[in-house]
């Protein structure tokens, strides 16, 4: 039952990520931002503007991508090898990895300093 719910979430986050990653990549196209080059879209002032204007959206992107990525790796590892200890280890590592990276993502959005 938990596995089925996780798989459903894998599909939901996947569909969500198609939209959010497309938006995230579009932010790096200079013409859409009125800038001259790709590197200009990465300048601290521009990136800080994104953090302050779309912080919640960036956080949603990070959390959805983390869930999708960590759960995907968990599925691959569970398919590669079988056993009760292995299953518990992989599941625990997946939860820890998600929580640790999510904490870093939340911190980087909330505590970003102005350039």
């Amino acid at each position: 039952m938990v596995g089925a719910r996780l798989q459903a979430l894998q599909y939901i986050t996947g569909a969500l990520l198609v939209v959010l990653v497309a938006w995230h990549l579009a932010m790096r196209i200079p013409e859409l931002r009125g800038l001259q080059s790709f590197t200009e879209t990465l300048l601290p002032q521009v990136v800080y503007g994104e953090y302050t204007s779309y912080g919640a959206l960036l956080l949603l992107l990070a959390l959805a991508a983390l869930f999708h990525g960590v759960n995907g790796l968990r599925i691959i590892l569970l398919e590669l090898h079988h056993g009760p200890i292995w299953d518990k280890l992989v599941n625990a590592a997946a939860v820890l990895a998600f929580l640790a990276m999510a904490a870093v993502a939340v911190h980087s959005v909330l505590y970003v300093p102005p350039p």
Partner: protein
Amino acid sequence: MAGRIRARLLNNRPGPRAWIDPWLLRIRGNPERLAFMLHRLTGVIVSFFLFFHILTVSRPAREGSWEAYLEEALRLGEPNITSILFYIAMGAVLYHGINGVRLILVEALALGIGRPEKPKPPYIAPSLRGFQRLLIYASIALWLVLWALLGYVMFLR
């Protein structure tokens, strides 16, 4: 004897070797398997890139300064090992996303599944003929075009 058993086991459970070993891929005449293998491989690349990306963009918040971030960001605009690795990761992101849309269309919206039919020789799976096969080729073509465009935006402008 042991070698033969090992070869049989390897054939049935090749593990991660099947992702990169051309003799185990068995993709000839089977674009769906190629799409699946690429989806897994790019998924692993994207996952590790995501961890790296989150750690990189968190540097200003962790260090309280944008200097180290700026140094790394400026390196992405010119051809070097960092920008080439970034470009490969972006290729993986694009493939995983485009093939993901194809999978949602086929698996969730049943696009190109067709009606149930009696099996008739030659036994070719519906996913390997007609619209679904076309969809796989279209997604690979779209991926290559978008990846090339990204290369133009990153390195040639």
